[in-house]
C-alpha cells in the first residue's frame, strides 16, 4: 500500500498522548484562556466542560495546532506541536461539509488530500456509513440530509483515515435531544472499537458523563481547569444514564462546581 499519508496502521490501533503545558491565550489585552495543563493518555476519552465563552473552543484549536498559544506548548507523543496536527480528525458544532460534494465524496476528501489509496479508504468510508446509520446517503448532497445525518457524515470524515486523535467541539450542540442521545451512543461504539484519543468539548453534563473517562471542568473566562472527575461507569453506557446512581453523583458534583463558580445563580 502506498504510505504517503500521515496515518499508518501502527498508529491507528491506539491513540496518541496529548499534553498541554502551561497554555494561555490572549486576544490583544484580553486574557481568554489559562494557564491550563492537560495530560491525555493514549486512547483516553477526555471531555472539557464549561460555560459559554470560557475558552473551550480555543483550547481545542490550540490542541489541534490550528491556533498558536500565547504561552506554553502542546506536545503530541512527547513532540512539540508547531504546525497543524494532521494525524487527527476534527468535528465542529457545524458540520462544515462541502455543499458541492456528495456525502461520500465529502468523506473521501480525506483520501484525495492525503493521497491515500482510494479503494481502501472508500471501503472504510462505506463501513463507517453503515456503522453510523448512513446507508443510502452516499450519493446525496448535504442540503438533502437532515441535521443529524450531516453531523454523522462529518464524524465519518473525521475517522475515515483512522487518526490517532479525534477532536470534537460541541459536535452535538445543534442537534435535538433524541438524535443527540443516539449519536452519542454510536460515537461511543466507534471509540470502543478504535480507541483513538478523544478530546471532546461540550457544555452538556449528560454528554460529559455519558462519554468520558475523565471530565475536566473549566471556569469562566479566562478559562482554567478547576476540577478533574474520573468517570468509571461501565461501557457501553445506556441511553438513560439515570440507571446509575454514580451518574447522579457525578452530575451533582459538576452542578455544585458550577454553582460555586457562579455559573449558576439559583435562589
Amino acid at each position, binding site marked *: 500500500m502506498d504510505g504517503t499519508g500521515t496515518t499508518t496502521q501502527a498508529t491507528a490501533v491506539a491513540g496518541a498522548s496529548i499534553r498541554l503545558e502551561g497554555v494561555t491565550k490572549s486576544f490583544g489585552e484580553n486574557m481568554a484562556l489559562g494557564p491550563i495543563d492537560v495530560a491525555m493518555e493514549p486512547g483516553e476519552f477526555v471531555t472539557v466542560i464549561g460555560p459559554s465563552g470560557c475558552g473551550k473552543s480555543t483550547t481545542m484549536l490550540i490542541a489541534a495546532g490550528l491556533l498558536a498559544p500565547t504561552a506554553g506548548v502542546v506536545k503530541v507523543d512527547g513532540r512539540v506541536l508547531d504546525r497543524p496536527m494532521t494525524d487527527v480528525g476534527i468535528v465542529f458544532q457545524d458540520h462544515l461539509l462541502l455543499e*458541492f460534494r456528495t456525502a461520500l465524496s465529502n468523506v473521501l476528501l480525506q483520501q484525495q488530500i492525503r493521497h491515500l489509496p482510494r479503494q481502501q479508504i472508500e471501503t472504510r468510508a462505506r463501513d463507517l456509513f453503515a456503522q453510523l446509520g448512513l446507508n443510502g446517503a452516499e450519493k446525496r448532497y448535504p442540503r438533502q440530509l437532515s441535521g443529524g445525518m450531516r453531523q454523522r457524515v462529518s464524524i465519518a*470524515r473525521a475517522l475515515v483515515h483512522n487518526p490517532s486523535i479525534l477532536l470534537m467541539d460541541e459536535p452535538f450542540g445543534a442537534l435535538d435531544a433524541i438524535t443527540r442521545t443516539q449519536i452519542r451512543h454510536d460515537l461511543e461504539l466507534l471509540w470502543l472499537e478504535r480507541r483513538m484519543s478523544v478530546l471532546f468539548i461540550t457544555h452538556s453534563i449528560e454528554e460529559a458523563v455519558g462519554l468520558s473517562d475523565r471530565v475536566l471542568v473549566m471556569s469562566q473566562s479566562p478559562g482554567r481547569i478547576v476540577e478533574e472527575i474520573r468517570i468509571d461507569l461501565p461501557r457501553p453506557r445506556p441511553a438513560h444514564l439515570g440507571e446509575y446512581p454514580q451518574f447522579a453523583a457525578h452530575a451533582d458534583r459538576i452542578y455544585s462546581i458550577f454553582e460555586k463558580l457562579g455559573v449558576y445563580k439559583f435562589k
Partner: protein
Amino acid sequence: MTMKQVWTIVLNLFGPVATVIAVLAIWKCIEQGWHIPRYLLPTPSEVYAATVANVGALWRNTAATMEIIVFGFVVSVVVAVPLAFLIVTFHFFERLCYPLIIILQFIPKTIVAPLLLVWLGIGVLPKSALVMLMTFFPILLESISGFRLIDKRIFYITQSMGASRAEEFFFVRIPGAMPSIFAGMKTATVYAVTGAITAEFIGSNEGIGYMILQASGDLDMPLTLAAVIASALLGVILSAAMLASEKLLMPWMEHR
C-alpha cells in the same frame, strides 16, 4: 409517458404560446386600427417574409456577433475570476485595485467604444474589448462575494488534512465560489449582447448591430425587426448555454 405527463407538458407550453399569439394579435390590431404606415410598422407576415428572404445574411451576421461575444466574454472570465481571488486573498491587492476598479466601473462603457476603435483598429478586437469591459464588473463583483462567502472554518479541516494552498483553491474555493461566479456570468450575458451590438453600431462591416443599422438606414423595417429578433435570440441562446453548463458543472444546486 402517461396521460398526466402529456397534459402537464401541454399546460406548460400553453402559457408561452398564448403570449406570443397575443403579442402578434395586438401588433396586428395596432397596425390595422390606427392605420400606421407600413414603412413604420410592418405586419408580422412581412417580418416573417424578410426573415426567410435574408436567412443567409441573418445567420452570417448573428454568427459574427456571437464570435465577438464569446471571445470578449471568455477573456473577461479568465481575468475577472483570478483577480477576484487575489483581491479576496491579499489585502494589499484589494487596496491596489479598488480605486482603478471603481473609476472604471463608473465610466459609461459605451462612451469608451469610439476610443477603443481608435486604439485597436477595426475588426474583432475593439468590439470584443467593449464586450469584455461591459461584462467584467458583474463577473468580478459576484466572484468576489463568492470567494468571501466561503466559511473560513472549513480551512481548519483542510489544514488538519495537510492541504496545500493549491489544494484548498481547487478543492474548496473554486467549487465553493462557483454558484456566485455563474450568477455574475448570467447577469453579464445581457451586457455582452448590448456591448457587442453597440460596438457594431459604432464601427463595423458585419454583425447583427451592423445589419440593424443598415436596414433601418434604408427604412427597411421588416428586415430591421427581423434582425432585432435575431439579436434577442442570440441572448436566449447564450442564457440557455449558461443554464446547461450550470447544470453540468453544479449538480448540487437546485436548478429552476
